[in-house]
């Protein structure tokens, strides 16, 4: 007890506060910040913030590197965009694609995660199998699926073998191609959803499930009343990641359909922006399309996060 009192720091006498105050050394802190924080900050500024600001600047011009001089046009690109059928079609296509990619992997991934939420080598192996598409390059996946979906590809071969005389043109029919593309994206993103939901399921306390069981709740009621609410954070992560990934999709479109068949059947906003910039040479207008995409993603993500986080808080 005595030693505790002795070890306690003494209060400095009144009036001596400024004289005895330990010197606050600022430079070590600055150096610490620079050495640890600067790399991340610099990368973020150089590769995220600066390009966004520069793109926004370009979007206010008629910038065409092949047709100088560049002139400031204010919001004219944005006004034109809202009357441009090509852009509006691509916005519609991107929205449909995003809706499918947000809903389907979430629903199917949840179901698979529930089925795989068991111990054993088989379940571990199956988890790896479902996650594999996620780690593969999008281009590799796109090339594989392009071969699969061709008219004389394995899928139609199987359909013909079972008696379908005229199987669908998965990539050649403009009414189907968008859904073929969405299927490929769903297939790739499914593993991600499964892993996130499995992580969420592992965090559901067994005591709660046992208590619900003792109270007479069956498996379905236990899932909806106990498990599903506890998966709210996993749903938030999956929804936001899928939404962002789907809305800015480019590589699959470039490899599988190149925006076709025909004009605009599968041309997403990101694909259209690249075409506008590097085929049509209208880089100012393309920057406006890219900024519009950024704004839409930001708004949708903010709304989704707001709604889903509120659900988490209500738990």
């Amino acid at each position, binding site marked *: 007890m005595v030693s505790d009192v002795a070890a306690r720091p003494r209060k400095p006498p009144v009036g001596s506060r400024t004289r005895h105050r330990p010197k606050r050394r600022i430079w070590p802190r600055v150096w610490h910040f620079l050495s640890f924080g600067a790399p991340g900050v610099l990368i973020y500024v150089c590769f995220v913030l600066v390009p966004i600001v520069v793109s926004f600047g370009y979007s206010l011009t008629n910038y065409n590197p092949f047709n100088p001089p560049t002139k400031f046009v204010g919001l004219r690109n944005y006004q034109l965009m809202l009357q441009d059928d090509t852009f509006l079609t691509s916005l519609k296509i991107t929205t449909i694609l995003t809706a499918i990619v947000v809903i389907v992997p979430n629903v199917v991934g949840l179901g698979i995660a529930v089925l795989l939420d068991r111990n054993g080598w088989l379940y571990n192996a199956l988890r790896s199998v479902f996650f594999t598409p996620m780690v593969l390059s999008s281009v590799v996946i796109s090339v594989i699926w392009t071969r699969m979906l061709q008219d004389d590809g394995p899928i139609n071969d199987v359909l013909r073998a079972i008696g379908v005389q005229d199987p669908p043109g998965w990539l050649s029919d403009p009414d189907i191609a968008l859904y073929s593309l969405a299927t490929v994206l769903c297939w790739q993103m499914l593993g991600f959803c499964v892993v996130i939901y499995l992580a969420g399921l592992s965090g559901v306390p067994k005591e709660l499930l046992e208590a619900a069981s003792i109270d007479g709740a069956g498996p379905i009621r236990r899932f909806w009343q106990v498990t599903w609410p506890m998966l709210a954070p996993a749903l938030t992560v999956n929804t936001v990641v899928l939404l962002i990934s789907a809305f800015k999709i480019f590589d699959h479109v470039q490899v599988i359909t190149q925006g076709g*068949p025909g004009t605009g059947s599968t041309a997403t906003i990101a694909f259209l922006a690249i075409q506008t910039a590097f085929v049509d040479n209208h880089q100012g207008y393309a920057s406006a399309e890219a900024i519009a995409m950024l704004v839409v993603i930001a708004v949708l993500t903010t709304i989704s996060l707001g709604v889903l986080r509120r659900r988490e808080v209500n738990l």
Partner: protein
Amino acid sequence: MKKILALGAALTLAAGLSACSVGDNNGGSTTQPSGSGAAAKKEITFLVFETDNLTPKFWDDNIKRVSEKVGVTVKKIVAPGDRTAYAKQLLASGQFPDVQIGLQDLPSFDGSGNLAEFSDEDLQPFLCPKCSAIKGRTVQLPANTQTWQVFYRKSLFEKAGISAPPKTYAELLADAEKLKGKGVQPFVIGGNPSWGSSLPWTGELTTDLYAGNPEWMHQRRDGKVKFDSPEFLKATKKFADLAAKGYLNKKDLGQSYDASQAAFLDGKGAMYPMGSWFAAASDASKVKDDIGIFAWPADDGSFHLPSFTGGGLTVNAKSPNVDIAKKFAVAWQTDKDYLDTSAVADALFPAIKGYTLPAKDGTVFKAVYDLYRQAVDQNATVPSFGWEQGDDGMIAGMPDKWNLSAQDIITGKKTPEEVLKYLDTEWDKSS
């Protein structure tokens, strides 16, 4: 410890700031010393593209030989996809290569002064020095001639009771009907890249538009004519009719260029409208003796052959090594070994004075070349719609839209009238 932290921070800042700095707009050309004390050997960058015909070995062998001849180090850059779009990306990011091959949309590149003009002396070895020129300036070496015709499988024609290739458009339709009646797909087309689906339309426009008015594209650029005109509509309706009658299989739009080529060589269709470069793959196949060719027939049976001369090397006008780059470009295009290998590998017809093709009698390549010579002798060559360059070509962005519109017609998504209105609207937007 403090010193280490300070040094780390300083290095990080330096690295970060250097990453932020703006690159040199003059492209990737640098000078590189060949050794200590030795005179500096210049290095130039060369944008190429690879296909089944133009393999990495093809480029490496030719680059090695020609660069040694010129005395320059050449760094090869391979376009990952569309070479013109890739060149635009490189230009926009300040990395435009010193030399490029087969660049399209030349007016866009040249409009901002990025392409060097070749002098009369440079162009002296070329047969058509002003082919693909822009306002009289030759910025792309007019190195090769390509033609577009219909390749057909003789055995499938015989199966349908057709003894000879069609000479009029009515015969073409009758033959297509006979083939269809025998369960043979009349035409094979491709969908990816999209130009694979517009080649029959090029054929229709050859006979119905360019044969009567070879200046049509110049007039369109001047705003004197529109896509939505009677001649264009007639050709487009004939193209739409081929799709409506099932002679063109809309499911082919799902197949790549390689797959469409394989489909024709595998006998999955009887006719394959394609460029002369397909002769190389034909001759390399087991069915080369079963492949014949004919020009897209006109209603009245007159002979017209779409052709294009150009497609050679272009040079970055802002390169610090522009002179050596031009020297390399001319040396490349006039190198006999390169011309021989490109004629064999890609079935190109070098448009070089005094050059004679390697003897290849009895081949598809020979037949295609003979057809071209016949067209030249009869003054029957016309521009190839969708493939023109320089002042003869469409404005930036339009070839892609035109190719994709062909798919809209094949799938029935749009009527010919709707397509032509769309093309006029897009042209006005692009210009």
